[in-house]
């Protein structure tokens, strides 16, 4: 019994291998289409990761300016503000500092004179508050505005909201695109395997006539489909990594203006491990489903 099983497994491996070896051009059709599709899928996934990374990066640079009531000290308010869970860091800008730098900007050096002219320093203490993530900024601002001693709150409201909107839109779009791509990938691999099945229909007919079971006949095709998926995943992963490296290099040559962007585009370690695994899983799933579809019509008769 064991021996028969070993013979059968041997046969399956051999047949799959033989199918691949003799398939020649056909294999490349299948593999190249799977590669193209997994590549698109990978780009889409990676871009979606990168855009959220980029948004977080940009968001963490967005700060809420909190203007205190006149006479209140920033240093005193700082611990209160730091207690909010959304707050990452707080920088205090005292009104004297701010006034000095303002006057300097205006080309004025006689600070005491100017202050006297106005009667007093017209500014108030300000806290620059960084949120932990871009999405939290609007609520944080609302909360801060309600704190006692806070006169006013300012942040890049419009811009941020729009960035978040865009990100949400992009996520939806990429779900749609990935869905469509999955269907396309399955359709293409189904077509390819079916092409191969059709091109061997003579063989298959003969096999059935000499008493081979459907399983025996079609399993090599299914394994072949899965192999296509796996090879396609490997190649597209290679491409993706290559292109990512290329873009990194392009960006690191740039001056520090793009530092933020470049950091946002970088994938985390877990994403770097996840990407090939997802591609592999997706590739073999597509190969499996595609080849099952391809042989179903024939095998279920």
């Amino acid at each position, binding site marked *: 019994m064991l*021996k*028969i099983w070993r*013979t*059968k497994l*041997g*046969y399956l491996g051999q047949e799959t291998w033989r199918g691949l070896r*003799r398939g020649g051009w056909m294999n490349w059709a299948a593999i190249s289409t799977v590669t193209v599709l997994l590549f698109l899928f990978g780009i889409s996934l990676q871009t979606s990761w990168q855009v959220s990374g980029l948004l977080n990066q940009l968001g963490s640079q967005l700060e809420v300016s909190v203007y205190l009531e006149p006479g209140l000290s920033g240093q005193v308010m700082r611990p209160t503000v730091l207690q909010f869970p959304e707050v990452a860091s707080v920088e205090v800008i005292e009104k004297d500092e701010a006034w000095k730098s303002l006057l300097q900007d205006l080309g004025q050096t006689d600070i005491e004179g100017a202050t006297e002219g106005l009667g007093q320093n017209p500014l108030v203490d300000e806290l620059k508050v960084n949120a932990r993530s871009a999405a939290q900024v609007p609520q944080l601002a609302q909360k801060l505005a309600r704190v006692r001693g806070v006169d006013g709150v300012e942040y890049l409201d419009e811009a941020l909201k729009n960035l978040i909107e865009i990100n949400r839109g992009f996520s939806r779009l990429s779900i749609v695109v990935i869905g469509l791509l999955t269907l396309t990938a399955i359709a293409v691999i189904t077509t390819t395997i079916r092409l191969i099945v059709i091109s061997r229909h*003579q*063989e298959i*007919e*003969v*096999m*059935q*006539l*000499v*008493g*081979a*079971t*459907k*399983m*025996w006949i079609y399993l090599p095709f299914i394994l072949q489909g899965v192999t296509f998926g796996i090879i396609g995943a490997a190649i597209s992963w290679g491409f993706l990594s290559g292109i990512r490296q290329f873009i990194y290099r392009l960006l690191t040559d740039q001056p520090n203006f793009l530092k933020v962007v470049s950091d946002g585009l970088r994938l985390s370690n877990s994403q770097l491990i996840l990407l090939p695994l997802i591609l592999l899983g997706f590739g073999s799933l597509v190969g499996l489903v595609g080849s099952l579809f391809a042989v179903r019509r024939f095998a279920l008769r």
Partner: protein
Amino acid sequence: MPEPIDPSLQISPQPTLNPSSYTVQLRGVTKIYPKTKFGLVDVNLRLKQGSFLFVTGPSGAGKTTLMKLIYGAERPDHGEVLVAGNSVGVLRGNRLSHLRRQLGVVFQDYKLIPRWTISENIAFVLKSQGVPRDEIERRLRPTLKLVGLQKRAECFPDQLSGGEQQRASIARAIVGSPKLLLADEPTGNLDQENALQVLSILTKLNNLGITVVITTHDMHLIQVAQAPVARIYNGRLHMVNAEQAASERV
């Protein structure tokens, strides 16, 4: 309709008491192809284990159709085809596959797989039955030698002459030691010497208890074999004895 000639062979419309004692049994089988309106009409046939039958008739009479009904490539419109007690017309999937493994078929158009070598073509029958590799090796050589193709084992079908392909097809049919051998025009592309050689192989297998059905146009072969002959004409099966068949212009 003439009387049955051989005790192992009967043509009768009435049902029998013990149907499974026949290797092949056709009861009132009708098969008409919709497209051409040709085929077989009300065919009754019983073959005991170990019998030997020639089927003859003009081109397009329905000989191949009879074979296809027995190995389950066509299903009857009416009636029943029983092989080893199984109704072939209703078998499907793995059960049909299992039945076919007990059959050896020489197809009229050989049906060799073009991309496989001759030995792969023949070994496949054994492989698909899960026969271990060394056992396959052991059986392959003698079978190839039997049909005179030992030197063509590694050739592909299109590297063989017509007659060699036909002999390869015969080798594939007999390599699995089937219980029932169906040979559709197995000597059409063979010279007389090779044809007689094939006949003697089939006769030997028959002597081992294998049931053999051969369709042929070769009167000489029928004369030599002295076996029962069924003649299909206009889709109907008639029994003739061997001498009568040979003297007719079938």
